[in-house]
């Protein structure tokens, strides 16, 4: 038999065995169906929940990049298709807006669970989600390249520009800086980071009126534009995966990357020789003399659908509590994320995210209309970067596009 196939079969057998060993997790009846993102840490959580299947209890997980598009329709029906949605601080908001998830306080009171109080995410005094990991975008740099260029690791975006100039002048790299500036969600997120770094507030106080067409917004766009001079000219089409590939190929020396995706860069798989050893995950950058880092903090957690039977809700809760139990922690799992679970010992892969938390970065806002602004930014900002418009005009367009969408959704 082909050795790979054999290993797979053995692994499948082991998984089946462990599934039956864990079968139950205290679940007497009900069905569980999970929707969530697909990065390694969430795969681990999904597998943990699926291990509770057996004895007439069905546990399924649909972990996909398209989770954002699926979760609202998937939880809207009655009964809902999915009983559990694994969300982040941005994606819990549409579920809250439509009232699609249930408070977990009753379930916690009845079944408890091996997690600490900090993991409870509460909205208006009700626990709506149980968090299990934190995430953030932060600086990643190449120690060897900076040494060759004779520069210190940058702590501000201004220093990044200076460092990139030196690296270029010395002929070490053509495009030393990398970040996910692809049109759409990515470039909008980079604007959000930079805007917060300059001290901006997205909305006028106490209303849904946008507040980005101001000095902070213009400064943020101009700083991003200066950075693009040091980026691969295709930057409007490059996402996290492509930027990571550029990193592994040794084409980039300074990069803004997600903690959850930067970890794998340290183990050297798929990297050109010498790159992984010199990859350092560092604190996020500040900008414009500000003290708040130009980045946002994120959490991931699970929520339970409202439009399902109480039996399914209990089964879902028990399966998910089992999946985030401190007993899942081992060397392999610890590397996958910055876990908020008891018993987690920080690994080198978590350095950047912890530095971000300690630097006092702001969490990505959980505001009902934030995602509309995010979408408007993603659609309108590319005009500025392809040189068609001034910063002020672009920001005015973003506000106009946002206001049209917000009127349609009933926010304005």
């Amino acid at each position, binding site marked *: 038999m082909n050795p790979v196939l054999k290993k797979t079969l053995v692994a499948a057998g082991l998984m089946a065995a462990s599934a039956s060993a864990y079968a139950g997790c205290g679940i007497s009846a009900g069905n569980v169906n999970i929707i969530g993102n697909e990065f390694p840490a969430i795969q681990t959580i999904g597998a943990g929940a699926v291990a509770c299947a057996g004895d007439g209890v069905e546990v399924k997980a649909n972990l996909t990049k398209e989770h954002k598009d699926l979760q609202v329709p998937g939880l809207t029906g009655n009964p809902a298709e999915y009983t559990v949605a694994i969300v982040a601080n941005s994606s819990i908001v549409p579920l809250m807006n439509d009232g699609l998830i249930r408070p977990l306080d009753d379930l916690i009171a009845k079944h408890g669970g091996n997690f600490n109080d900090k993991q409870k995410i509460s909205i208006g005094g009700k626990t709506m989600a149980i968090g299990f990991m934190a995430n953030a975008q932060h600086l990643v740099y190449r120690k060897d390249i900076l040494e060759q260029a004779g520069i210190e690791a940058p702590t501000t975006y201004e220093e990044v520009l200076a460092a990139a100039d030196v690296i270029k002048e010395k002929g070490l790299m053509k495009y030393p800086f990398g970040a996910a500036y692809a049109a759409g969600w990515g470039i909008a997120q980079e604007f959000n980071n930079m805007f917060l770094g300059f001290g901006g507030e997205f909305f006028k106080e106490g209303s849904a009126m946008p507040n980005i067409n101001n000095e902070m917004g213009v400064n943020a766009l101009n700083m991003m534009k200066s950075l693009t001079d040091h980026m691969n*000219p*295709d930057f409007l089409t490059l996402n996290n995966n492509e930027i990571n590939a550029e990193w592994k190929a040794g084409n980039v020396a300074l990069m803004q990357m997600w903690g959850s995706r930067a970890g794998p860069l340290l183990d050297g798989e798929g990297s050109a020789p010498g790159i992984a050893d010199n990859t350092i995950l560092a604190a996020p950058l500040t900008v414009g003399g500000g003290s708040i880092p130009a980045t946002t903090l994120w959490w991931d957690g699970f929520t339970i659908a409202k439009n399902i039977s109480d039996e399914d809700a209990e089964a879902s809760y028990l399966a998910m509590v089992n999946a985030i139990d401190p007993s899942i922690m081992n060397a392999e799992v610890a590397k996958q994320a910055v876990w908020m679970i008891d018993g987690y010992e920080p690994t080198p892969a978590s350095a950047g995210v912890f530095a971000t938390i300690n630097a006092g970065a702001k*969490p990505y806002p959980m505001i*009902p209309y934030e995602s509309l602004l995010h*979408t408007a930014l993603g659609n309108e900002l590319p005009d500025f970067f*392809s040189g068609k418009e001034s910063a002020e005009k672009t920001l005015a367009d973003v506000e106009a596009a946002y206001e*049209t969408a917000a009127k349609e*959704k009933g926010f304005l």
Partner: protein
Amino acid sequence: MLLFIFLPIISVVTQSLHIDHEQVFVEVENCDFFGCKKAMAVDTEATEQLRAEQPLGRFVGLDNYFNRSHLASSEIATAWKNSDSFGEFYDQVYNLPLYRAIIFTLVYTFTVTPLLIILGFLIAIGVNSLHRHLKGFVIFFSLLPMIVTPLVGSLILFWMIDSRGIIGSSLQHLFNDPNLSLKASTSLTWITLMVYGVWHSAPFAFVIFYAGLQTLPQDTLESAMIDGASRWERIRYVVIPHLMPLVTFVALIQLMDNFRVFEPIVGFNASAHATSLSSIIFSDLGGESRLLSSASTTSVLTILGVIVLLSPVLYRTWRDWERKV
């Protein structure tokens, strides 16, 4: 027809005349790992009640059609008043999402359709004159672009034109410009998308024309040869008139196909430089907050666009048919 065409259109039209209920806000305290913060949230119970009273949402008449995301009547009026030249007016119109999408969609449709008909015809003529042992083999290869899934086809080309890809870096060498990037410039992106469109659809025209060539009246061709007509003259006066009904057919199908250009924009990650009617509908429907009314409005406008676009061809077909009957 009633179930699959009429009812969906009715539902889309209805949706496009409504918007969501006014959201009732409450201020709440959100707490997570990173601390607590006061923020606005939707009062779901109050909103739920509004929704129960009026399940369709708020009726707004044609407001959705004339807002900034669609026909943008007030923005167009302002642009007309404030611009001194036509170029300036065009720039302002191009800045509005729907018009930008319409402009790209129309340029794409009317560039790609004629080019693919010409290219398909040339391939058909070429293949038809090959030795019969070669034909099967060449036909298979000519059909490949159409067999390849559009998304996969566009991804392959997308990687090749990357500034580190084979075509991208060859062009940099050829023009001696290390910063040349096909993906960074709007006009080059448009050209790439159109080249891809022709590449992908020419085999369709080729197959139809090749089938048509098999029914060429040999008598007419031979008599033309005896009269001393050159190869070009035979094509001009015998082959093309014979294939004309097929040209109408291919044009009709391809106009419809190209008008809903979508996959290449996704495959080429080109949304920064090119949006089409289908791609803006898709982006309205995707993401965390879906804009159903906006998407429906664009859909209704697209349906109207297709009707306008096809009316000359349909009229012509109808007239031909009438004449025959």
